[in-house]
């Protein structure tokens, strides 16, 4: 039987292994950075990893589950159960600060520090997003929907480069 202390060490060990599992669509981010791993539960013979999808139709979720399984298997954990939960719904507030830095270095603007999600007011001005290339705030949104569900399409009016914005959600 595992006691409280070994449980905690075991959980930390699993969590640090999961830092090796990248998001297949934004490979600089790990599933930990993204905040989609909600909990790890250790039973005697089995590990349960509880994850939550970013968007309902996110096609990366199946790949992510498989990769979590693979990484844990490589480290000798044979019985792994992956449970997907929907509530509470994922939010970009769960993204780690380290993750935001990695995104920016990769050329994707991280979610704005002040969490402002899409509201229903038509044609409302969005809060300025900083260009990840030249740091200018003189940018404009091209489309609220980008190459993946979690991103919006922006352009920088200063350096004229287009870029992705990981939108607040």
């Amino acid at each position, binding site marked *: 039987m595992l006691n409280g202390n070994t449980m905690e060490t075991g959980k930390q060990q699993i969590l640090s292994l999961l830092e090796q599992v990248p998001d297949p669509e934004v490979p600089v981010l790990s599933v930990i950075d993204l905040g989609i791993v909600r909990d790890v539960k250790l039973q005697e013979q089995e590990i349960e990893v509880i994850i939550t999808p970013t968007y*309902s139709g996110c096609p990366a979720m199946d790949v992510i589950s498989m990769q979590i399984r693979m990484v844990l298997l490589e480290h000798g954990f044979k019985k792994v159960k992956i449970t997907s939960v*929907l*509530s509470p*719904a994922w939010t970009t507030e769960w993204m780690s600060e380290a993750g935001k830095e990695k995104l920016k270095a990769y050329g994707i603007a991280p979610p704005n520090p002040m969490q402002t*999600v899409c509201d229903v007011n038509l044609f409302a001005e969005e809060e300025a997003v900083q260009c990840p290339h030249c740091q200018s705030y003189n940018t404009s949104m091209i*489309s609220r929907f980008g190459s993946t*569900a979690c991103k919006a399409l922006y352009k920088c009016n200063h350096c004229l480069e287009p870029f992705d914005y990981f939108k607040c959600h």
Partner: protein
Amino acid sequence: MKEAPISADSTSQLINQSTNQLISYTLHLADNALILGQRNAEWTGHGPVLEQDIAISNIALDLIGQARNFYQYAAKLTNETTNQPNNQPATEDTLAYLRDSRDFKNCLLVELDKGDWARTVLRQFFFSNYQCWLYESMKKNKDQTLAAIAEKSLKEVIYHLRWSAEWVVRLGDGTTESHRRITDALNDLWPYTGELMANASYEKYLLNEHIAVDLDSIKQPWLDKTTAVLQEATLRLPPNQWMQDGGKEGNHTEHLDYILMEMQYLQRTYPGVEW
């Protein structure tokens, strides 16, 4: 006459009946999302400009994601109630790919052809406006699974609602041509909006159990939002008229058979085929 004591058998029948209504309701929610998602996906690669092609495809993806969550729940409920060992267990795939059109419970609005861009964005606006109020209420539902799906989906629907409403305004208050097209779409689609907010038999049943959202309660907020957006788009709200219905009870237009034929062809021809 003295009432017969409730036997264990009739209790389980009652539970079964209630679960069957819940399965119908969940399938209705799933079918709505799947069929509109499939319709919108017809634009992928054919959108008027690249950014809007991506936008409508994103919306299609969100809807199909919502449909998957509802189908998975319906499959779980189905497998829990039917305990015949010879039955193939239901899965999200059997529910989407192996049911006939009479078993589909989506509203007629979502199955209609995609038409031009005006018709597509106006339909999306009517539907997202409905889904927004529906999920807002459903996230406080007694049924924990439905509540969780609603909470998750609502965040996405707000994007859809805003995007589609902006397009309605852009086209209505745009050029003579765009105004004419969206006016045509409005006249065509309006008779299909009533069904969105009419309680079907399974909803009436589940209302007594405080599970279904009472669609009467979202009529007014839906109409207020619609009126405001149409007004900004310089469009006139159509007069009161006869409303089409039937889809929620399995009576569909011919459009549904065509979409199912395309969607289900592969699984029907090569059962169990995988990528």
